[in-house]
């Protein structure tokens, strides 16, 4: 029973991170209709930049904020330089550009920060919290709190603010949004910045537990995407649910079968969902009409 509880805790911890990455996929997909293959690299940049800023002597909270802001800026610049020139056209070209861009971002991180793993201090020092016979690391509590807060703030922004409504309008129908005076192109840039910030937050929050390196992006990207697909691509609530479910599946597989299979779970989930229920657990019918 104790072991089971421990697996659940680990699953919800990783699941929260996948949820953040999945939200990033969802936001860019809503704005462009394309999958952003650089999403995992934003996760990597968050961790690496955080570790870098902290190593320059910046206090940890400041380093964290700086890392998120810098990654968001990189996301916006990435959109302006590579995605915008394509225009709202062919999603295949947007996907290709994000693939190439992901490689460039990863290589830049390699050239700047080197090939070694980098540590980051936990947000608060201290022993694990014990409850019901299970131990919860303090950083795990941080991850849960930050994810919950982010989801809450995002939901409020999307419902209550003019910016959020403009984002939603653009994702529903780009042309119509333009007709009522929304700068649809700026919304796409904003979606990349926001997705980058979410990825960075995930990378930053998990770095104290796992360390981080220039090459962690692709793996996390696949898992975040599997989570987004599991819930239903394009739906933020579903992305969070998908992330948590994927995290739980992974940690239970690793716990009860073999840790070697842990990384296979995401791909299995991805393929099974595509095969059985491509609209995701919470998605409606995704049929396209002529």
């Amino acid at each position: 029973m104790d072991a089971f509880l421990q697996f659940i805790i680990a699953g919800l911890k990783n699941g929260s991170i996948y949820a953040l990455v999945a939200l990033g996929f969802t936001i860019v997909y809503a704005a462009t209709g394309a999958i952003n293959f650089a999403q995992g690299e934003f996760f990597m940049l968050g961790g690496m930049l955080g570790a870098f800023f902290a190593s320059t002597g910046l206090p940890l909270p400041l380093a964290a904020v700086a890392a998120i802001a810098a990654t968001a800026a990189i996301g916006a610049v990435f959109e302006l330089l590579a995605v915008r020139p394509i225009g709202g056209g062919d999603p295949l070209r947007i996907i290709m550009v994000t693939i190439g861009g992901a490689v460039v971002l990863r290589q830049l991180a390699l050239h700047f920060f080197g090939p070694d793993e980098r540590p980051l201090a936990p947000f608060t020092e201290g022993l694990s919290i014990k409850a019901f016979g299970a131990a919860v690391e303090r950083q795990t509590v941080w991850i849960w709190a930050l994810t919950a807060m982010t989801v809450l703030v995002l939901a409020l922004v999307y419902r209550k603010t003019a910016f959020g409504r403009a984002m939603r309008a653009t994702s529903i129908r780009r042309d119509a949004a333009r007709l009522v005076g929304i700068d649809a192109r700026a919304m796409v840039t904003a979606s990349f910045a926001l997705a980058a910030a979410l990825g960075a937050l995930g990378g930053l929050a998990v770095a104290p537990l796992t360390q981080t390196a220039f090459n962690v992006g692709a793996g996390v990207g696949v898992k975040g995407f599997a989570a987004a697909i599991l819930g239903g691509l394009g739906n933020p609530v579903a992305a969070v649910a998908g992330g948590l479910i994927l995290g739980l599946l992974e940690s239970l597989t690793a716990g009860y079968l073999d840790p070697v299979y842990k990384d296979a779970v995401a791909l299995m989930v991805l393929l099974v969902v595509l095969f059985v229920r491509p609209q995701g657990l919470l998605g409606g019918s995704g049929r396209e009409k002529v």
Partner: protein
Amino acid sequence: MRGARTLGRLAPFVALAIIAIVPLLVTDRFLLKIFTFAGINALVVTGLALLFGYAGQVSLGHAAFVGLGAYTCAFCTVRLEWPWLLAFIASGALAAVGGLLLALPSLRLKGHYLAMATLGFGLLMTLAFVEAEPITGGVDGFGGIPFPTLGPIEIREASSLYWLVWAIVGIALVAAFNVTSLRPGRAMRALHGSELGAQACGVDVVGVKVRAFVVSALLAGLAGALYASVVGFVSPSIFTLTASIAFLAMAVVGGTRSLSGPLAAAVLLTLVQYLDALIPGIPRETAQTLQSYQEDIYGLAIVLVVVLAPGGLASMWRRQTRGSHAS
């Protein structure tokens, strides 16, 4: 204007002749090996040209199919002591089956789920090559793979290996050319334009995409078997995401709706990796710098081509010949 057209018609034959006589002009064994590697990459990229350039799908996992072929060939020839040709065919077949299993769920849908599924597949296979130690030899790799044999003839000379590889590339190119210029090719081009439109005209959209993917996986598997037999040693560090990106970059730079463009790009981008061997006078540091920025070049090349010249080399060449045609 007629000159340009005749040139365009003659180009494949001229290229073929040049490729065929290389071993007569180049005696350096290391150089020949580089040109052989170029042929192996060309085989993979020919499959990707069908998949990307004609069917409009992206794969980020083709190195995994190359690896699957390489390990199958190694295992069948060394452990099972199969004749080489049988092992070679088995390598292609296994990669094709793997491709089918991956493509069926991913390609039923619109959007580019295949790209993500192949990315996951590639990462997973890299892991599998390391973990399945009894079969693959783990991180230490798999050595002692014999040279190709055809019946009693063992192919071990650098020049013979070169000819074997390029002969298979030639067969693949002819087959691919037939596919693209006949009915399946028209179907593929149609769905690159508009999937719904193609569907409305009675094109089996999913079937065409799945077939293109399976053929590309098959060619990648065969290329892997050739690699294993030419080098004699395989290890998991070769069949990584980095290699998949390199193959994709070659296909993208080569261009859409073309086989000769990707072929040229595959050869050129392979040769860039060995610039120090090709140009003897080049300073060592320059070569090393170039090597450490190899992946940056692939990434940037993909971005630049897609943003600035989405048709790649092939469409630049087409525009050139058409331009001189109009004058």
